């Protein structure tokens, strides 16, 4: 099964195409990384996959052919947006209450236990938590929904190294222990090295390269993900400039 399938997918804002002719398959049961510089179209692609925006061209389905935004798709996908938006004036307990009320499936015991272990007080207002705690709260609310697919948009970009490590550890644990498929975007390459097994490389609104990480490394003779990404991004930059 593919958790995301796009064919000829495009998104235009005014006259600018943020995403063009995107055809790809994100396999289930993997941690897939969407890599590319700022403005490459990563967020646009994720927004299309979670149903926050509608395509200008082409089509996208999720969780094995389901319509984006359908009740089934909403139930099965948990999304943590960039900068982990939360209702800052509400308490942690209120956030749990809201997430629980808005979802068919929500493991409140899990959410409470995890926040307890993280030392996040449920009475504190979400806006008073540190950046790392806010990210962990958003992730907890997402995982407590027991999603089939967890989508993370630049999850650790704003976090310090410790919070970054802790956050990714949680994501990896969920992927390993519960078989949650993960799709995350990032422009920071180093942290993806140890987590991603499937890679989608993007630049300037197009998919440049996609496939399992080990295969890509072998075919292109690169030692690490970072080198592979840099190699391809440099190449596409030059070709765009000379065109």
């Amino acid at each position, binding site marked *: 099964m593919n958790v995301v399938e796009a064919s000829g997918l495009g998104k235009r804002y005014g006259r600018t195409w943020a995403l063009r002719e995107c055809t790809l398959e994100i396999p289930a049961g993997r941690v897939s990384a969407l890599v590319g510089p700022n403005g490459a179209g990563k967020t646009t692609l994720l927004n299309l996959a979670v149903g926050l925006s509608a395509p200008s061209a082409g089509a996208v389905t999720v969780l094995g052919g389901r319509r984006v935004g359908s009740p089934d798709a909403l139930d099965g996908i948990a999304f943590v947006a960039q900068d982990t938006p939360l209702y800052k004036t509400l308490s942690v307990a209120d956030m749990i209450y809201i997430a629980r009320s808005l*979802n*068919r499936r929500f493991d409140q015991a899990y959410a409470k236990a995890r926040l307890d272990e993280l030392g996040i007080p449920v009475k504190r207002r979400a806006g008073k938590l540190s950046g790392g705690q806010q990210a962990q709260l958003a992730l907890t609310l997402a995982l407590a929904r027991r999603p089939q697919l967890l989508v993370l948009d630049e999850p650790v970009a704003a976090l310090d190294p410790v919070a970054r490590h802790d956050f990714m550890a949680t994501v990896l644990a969920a992927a390993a222990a519960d078989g949650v498929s993960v799709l995350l975007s990032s422009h920071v390459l180093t942290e993806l090295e140890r987590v991603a097994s499937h890679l989608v490389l993007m630049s300037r609104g197009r998919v440049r390269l996609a496939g399992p990480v080990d295969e890509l490394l072998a075919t292109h003779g690169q030692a690490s993900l970072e080198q592979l990404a840099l190699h391809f991004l440099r190449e596409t930059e030059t070709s765009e400039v000379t065109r």
Partner: protein
Amino acid sequence: MTALTMPARRDSGDAAPRPLPWRRMLRVTWRQERFKIAGVAALLVVLAVWLWIAGTSVHHAYAAVLACHPASSPNCQDLASTFNGTWNSVSYWTIFLQLVPALIGAFAGAPVLARELETGTFRFAWTQGFERWRWALAKLVALAVVLAAATFAFSVLVSWCYQPFLGPNNQDLGIYGNSPLVTVFSLREVTFPAWTVATFAVGALAGMLIRRVVPAIVAALAVYAGLAVAAAAFLREHYLTPLVSSDTNVPGTAWIIGQWWTKDGRFAFAGNPPLNLISKCSFPGGGGPGGKGGGPGGPPSSVNPFAQCLAPHGYAEWNSFQPVSRFWPFQWIEGGWLLVLSALLIAVTIWLVHRRVA
């Protein structure tokens, strides 16, 4: 770091799927909007206390006038002017009260979607299991109903406070007799909630379109001002065809829309008589025109004194007016179109939320 890798077990008891009824969204709305609802309630309670204190003194003054006999005695005239004096302050409040439905509607309506869009929390709210058109529908309708109920209760108090100035027999007592079709018409039992809900709906749509809280509030207030002026100046008098009468004794509680004169059955002029005709009239005792029942400090009645002196010259006065018996039909007509407008605006807002593209 065992804590951080605590596994999430699928379908372990608490995580079993449950249905998503509407009432869950009502609870979410309460959690999110309780401070706003409390703020509206606090504002209305403060204003209600103030209206109740003011209204009590108005009612006392009015009861004293009603109880006084005979009405022409100096004692009663004093009481009448005391009562008429209260109108001066009460009429100023009207301007202030006029702002209440606008402010409540705009401040409650504009942030509902604008805040989500401004802070990015729509990315959280609209990716949960509750479909977002249902999310928007439940939230907007629940808030609209709460606002309508609260402002209805408040409007009952406003009506009570102003009731003495709207009495049908006030003219005979030499005290203010305003038409309920004009004075505080938009702050009564049907119109007050309807204007509040309409402004709320305008604010919600403006928030969805503008995506910023403060500009959306300003837009809602501007649209309210435009609609309120249009209703008061142009629309309201046409809700039903006005009655036309040459009987000069149109009651003071009626809303006079137009006045014109005929001479020998033909149209002569509109409004007040020109000076050369006025000079034909002479008024005994002081010289100025003082209608019957226009006591000291009291308002002129709607009976035009010129009609009597110009009648022998072949002139007749005509009035077009809305009788006070049309008060409730007018309330429901205005409330009706405002509620239809609100429903349309809310429907458009929900459609935009459903269709919207981030």
